[in-house]
C-alpha cells in the first residue's frame, strides 16, 4: 500500500496538531495534545470513553474551537472556524450517529448536506458511480427509512467522498456494523488510502485497529499517553495503554445447574409505536434460573423495542406474550413486573435509566418506589418519602458496587459514565432480583467498571436468578453468556449454546440469515 504520488509532497505530515488544549470551564478535556497524520495512512485514535477523542476530532473538524495550541494543515497553521471550513480544506467526517432524514431518499439526503456547487449535474449518477467504485453498494433512490444501519453509514461515507477529502475522520464506524459489513468497510478504507487519502480512525476495538491501522495515538484522561505502531503491539498491551493498568479478569465456572424457566416470551408480537421503529415478530425465548442468555445484534434491530416489551414500558395485548416467574404479564405495567421480582436496566443511562439532574437517592426511588425494601415501603403516601431509608440503600450500593461520586448523594449527571452505570446496575442488583433484563450492560464505560459489572451479573446468575443480556459487544457476550440468540429486524434467531457458536455464525445471523420472508409471518 505505498503511494508514490504523494511521497514527494513537501512536509512529512498532512495534518499536525501541536499542544492542542481544550478547557470546558475548569475541566480539561484535551491537555497539550500532539498528533501527526501522514497522507495515505490510517491513523488510529484510541482511548476509552471520556478520554477526549471526540473533543480532539471536533476541534480538527471545526465543531469546537481549541483553547490553545495549533492545527497545521499541509505545513500551514490554520484556524478551522466551522465544519464548512474544514470541508473546504478537504477534511471530511463520518459521525457515529448519523443525521439523516428517514423520509427522504439517499440522493436527497446527500444533496441537502452538500455545498451548492456540488449539487448540480446528475447527482444520483455520481453517487451510483462513486459507491460502486469504492465497494459501497448503495441505491441512490432508496428511502433512508428502509436501509440498514450499515447502508446508512455508507450514505455518510459517500457524502464525504463526493467532496474529495484529503483526510477522512471516522468516529467508531464499526460500532454499528456486522463483522461482514466491517470487513467491507476496511476494504473501502484501504482503497482510499491507496489513493493518498488519510484516515483518522477512532475506535476502542483493539483487534480491528491492529488489523487496519498504520499508526496509533492513545489518549487517556485528555492526554496523549503513547504513540505506537499497532502492528507491533498486542491487544493486551494496547488495552494497558488505554486503561493505564491491567484489566481485571472475570471469574466464572461453567457446568453449573440451571432450573425453571423464570422468563418466557411466547410468540411475542409487537408493532412498532413509531413509523421508523422496528416491529417484533414472533419472538420466543426462555431464560432459566441460574443462566445468562445474551441477545446479540446490530444496533437498531429491535433491541430497544424488545426491552420495552419485556420491561412493560410497552404493554402487550396478549397476556401470555411475556411470562415472568409463571405469571402471565403481557398487560402488567413495569411496576407490576418489578413486584414479581423482575428488574430492568435500560441502555441509555441519562434520561432513561436515571435523571441526570436528580440526586442519586431520587434515582433509587425512580425504579424502586413500587417495591418494598427489606419489607418496608420507600414512601408512605402523604406521610412522604423515607429519605433515611433511601440514604441507606445508596450507601449500600456505593459500597457493594464501588460507585464513586464527589458527595454521597451527588446529582446523577455529575458521575462519570462508568460510575453512573455501576450505580444503575447496582440499584437493581441490590434488590437481588429473580429476573434481570439488561440492555447494553457496559456500553461506553471504562474497562474497570465493565469488569465489575460483568462479574456482578455472573454472580447473580449463579445465585439462581435468570438474566437476559442484550448487547452489541461480542466479546462481552462470549464472556457472559451461557446461551446466545441473535436479533435481526425484530426477529429472534434460535438460541444456541455459547460454546457451539462462532463469531462468523453470529455475524451471519446478525445479517438476517434466520429471518422469515416478510409475507410468511404467522400469528
Amino acid at each position, binding site marked *: 500500500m505505498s503511494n508514490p504520488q504523494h511521497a514527494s509532497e513537501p512536509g512529512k505530515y498532512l495534518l499536525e496538531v501541536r499542544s492542542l488544549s481544550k478547557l*470546558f*470551564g*475548569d*475541566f480539561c478535556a484535551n491537555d497539550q495534545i500532539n498528533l501527526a497524520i501522514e497522507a495515505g495512512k490510517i491513523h488510529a485514535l484510541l482511548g476509552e470513553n471520556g478520554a477526549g477523542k471526540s473533543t480532539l476530532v471536533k476541534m480538527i473538524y471545526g465543531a469546537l474551537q481549541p483553547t490553545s495550541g495549533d492545527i497545521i494543515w499541509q505545513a500551514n497553521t490554520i484556524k478551522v472556524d466551522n465544519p464548512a471550513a474544514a470541508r473546504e480544506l478537504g477534511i471530511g467526517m463520518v459521525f457515529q450517529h448519523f443525521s439523516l432524514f428517514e423520509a427522504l431518499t439517499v440522493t436527497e439526503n446527500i444533496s441537502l448536506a452538500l455545498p451548492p456547487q456540488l449539487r448540480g449535474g446528475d447527482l444520483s449518477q455520481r453517487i451510483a458511480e462513486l459507491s460502486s467504485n469504492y465497494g459501497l453498494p448503495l441505491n441512490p433512490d432508496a428511502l433512508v427509512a428502509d436501509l440498514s444501519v450499515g447502508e446508512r453509514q455508507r450514505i455518510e461515507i459517500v457524502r464525504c467522498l463526493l467532496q474529495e477529502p484529503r483526510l477522512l475522520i471516522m468516529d467508531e464506524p464499526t460500532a454499528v456494523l456486522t463483522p461482514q459489513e466491517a470487513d467491507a468497510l476496511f476494504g473501502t478504507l484501504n482503497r482510499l488510502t491507496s489513493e493518498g487519502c488519510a484516515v483518522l480512525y477512532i475506535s476502542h476495538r483493539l483487534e480491528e485497529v491492529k488489523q487496519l491501522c498504520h499508526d496509533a495515538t492513545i489518549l487517556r484522561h485528555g492526554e496523549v499517553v503513547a504513540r505506537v505502531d499497532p502492528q507491533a503491539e498486542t491487544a493486551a498491551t494496547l488495552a494497558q495503554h488505554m486503561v493505564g493498568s491491567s484489566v481485571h479478569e472475570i471469574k466464572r465456572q461453567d457446568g453449573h445447574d440451571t432450573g425453571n424457566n423464570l422468563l418466557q416470551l411466547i410468540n411475542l408480537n409487537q408493532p412498532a409505536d413509531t413509523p421508523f421503529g422496528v416491529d417484533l415478530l414472533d419472538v420466543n425465548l426462555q431464560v432459566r434460573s441460574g443462566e445468562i442468555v445474551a441477545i446479540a445484534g446490530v444496533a437498531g434491530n429491535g433491541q430497544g423495542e424488545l426491552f420495552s416489551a419485556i*420491561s*412493560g*414500558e410497552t404493554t402487550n395485548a396478549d397476556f401470555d406474550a411475556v411470562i415472568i416467574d409463571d405469571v402471565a404479564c403481557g398487560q402488567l*405495567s*413495569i*411496576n407490576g413486573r*418489578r413486584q414479581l421480582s423482575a428488574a*430492568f436496566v*435500560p441502555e*441509555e443511562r441519562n*434520561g*432513561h*435509566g*436515571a*435523571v*441526570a*439532574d*436528580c440526586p442519586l437517592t*431520587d434515582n433509587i*426511588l*425512580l*425504579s424502586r*418506589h*413500587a417495591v418494598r425494601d427489606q419489607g418496608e415501603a420507600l*414512601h408512605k*403516601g*402523604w406521610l*412522604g*418519602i423515607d429519605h433515611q431509608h433511601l440514604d441507606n440503600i445508596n450507601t449500600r450500593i456505593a459500597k457493594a458496587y464501588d460507585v464513586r461520586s464527589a458527595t454521597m448523594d451527588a*446529582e446523577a*449527571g*455529575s458521575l462519570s459514565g462508568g460510575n453512573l452505570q455501576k450505580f444503575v446496575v447496582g440499584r437493581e442488583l441490590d434488590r437481588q432480583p429473580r429476573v434481570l433484563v439488561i440492555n447494553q450492560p457496559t456500553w461506553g464505560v471504562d474497562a474497570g467498571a465493565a469488569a465489575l459489572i460483568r462479574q456482578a451479573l455472573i454472580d447473580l446468575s449463579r445465585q439462581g436468578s435468570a438474566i437476559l443480556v442484550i448487547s452489541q459487544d461480542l466479546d462481552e457476550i462470549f464472556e457472559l453468556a451461557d446461551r446466545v440468540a441473535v436479533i435481526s429486524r425484530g426477529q429472534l434467531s434460535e438460541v444456541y449454546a455459547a460454546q457451539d457458536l462462532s463469531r462468523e455464525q453470529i455475524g451471519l445471523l446478525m445479517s438476517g440469515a434466520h429471518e422469515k420472508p416478510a409475507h410468511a409471518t404467522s400469528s
Partner: protein
Amino acid sequence: MQLILEKRAQASAIMNVASPVLAILLTVILGGIIFAAMGQPPLKALYIYFIDPLTNMWSIEEVLVKAAPLILIGIGLAVTFRANVWNIGAEGQLTAGALLGAMIPIFFAEWQSPLALLAMFALGMIGGAALAAIPALLKIRFGVNEILTSLMLVYIAQLLLDWLVRGPWKDPHGYNFPKSVAFDGWHLVPMFGDGRVHLGLFIALALAVVLFWMMNRTIKGFEIKVIGRAPRAGAFAGFSKTGTVWFCFLLSGALAGLAGIIEVAGPIGQLQPRISPSYGFTAIIVAFLGRLNPIGVIFAGLLLAISYIGGEGVQIELGVSDKTAQVFQGMLLFFILMCDTLIHYRVRFLGAKGAV
C-alpha cells in the same frame, strides 16, 4: 473581544436564588430609566411604586387582597410548569370558575348556609378544571400544543362572561348596568377586621404549604418532576405521562377557578364584565419568580401584588398611564427568564483579559 455563554458543569445553586434578586434589581433600574424618559423624577416614582404601598395599613391590606389570587393560581402553575406542561390559560379558568360558582347566588339566592359557600368553592374549582380539561384532552388525544389552546380559551371564557352579565344573568333591578345581582350573606367570602382581607388569602397560604409538601416530600411530586425533566425515565419509573398532563391541568385549572369564585364572592361581590386585572397571566410571572416552588410563590405573589398597587399609586400621584404596572410585570418576566440562563451558563469574555 468576544462575549460567550459557557455551559456550567453543574447547575449553580447560588444563581438559582440570586437570579430573581438580580431580575428585580434590573427591573428597578430599567424602570427608573423609563420614568426618567417620561419626564418623571425616577427615585420618587420608584418610591411611590415599590415602597409607598407598604407604608400604610390600607395599602398593605390591598396588597394582601391582590396577592391571594396570584398565590392561588401561581402555586398551581408552579406545579404544572414543573411537569413541562404549559397552561397559559389560567385567566380563562379563573373566569370559568367565577361563572360556575356564581350560579348559586344568582339562581339559589335563598339558600343561605355555610354549605352554600362551600358549594360555590366546589363549583368554582369544577368550572376552572372543566375549562382546563379541554387543552389537556386536545394535547393527549391529538397532540395539539397546549400553549395555544389554553390561551385561546381565555377569550372564549371572557366573552361568555361578558355576554352573561349583559344578557341572561343581568340583575333585573340593576338599572341596566352589566352586572349580576350583588351577592350577600353566606354567598360572600368572610372578611377579617375592618379591611378587605378575606378568607381566600388563608386558603391560598394553606394550599401553598400542602403543594410544597406534595412536590418535595411525596411520590406524586417526584412523579411530576421526573415527567417534566426526563419523560423516558418517567416511563421507566412506571409513571404515566398522560396522567400527569391531566393532573396538572385539572389541578391548576381548579385552583384558578377557586381564585375566580373567591374574587367575585370576595372583593368584588358580584359578576361584572371584568373580574380580574389579568391575575391569570401575572401568575405566570409569579410562578417563575417563585422558582416554581409553592413557598417561593407566596413571596413572588406579594411582590407582584405590590406592583399592582404601586401602578395605581404612580397613576394617581404622577399621572402616568395605568399600563405602567403591566410594563413593570413584563420587564420582570423578561429579566427573570434572562437571568435564569445564568443558572446553567456562565458569561465569559474572550480575547480581552480572560474570564470575568
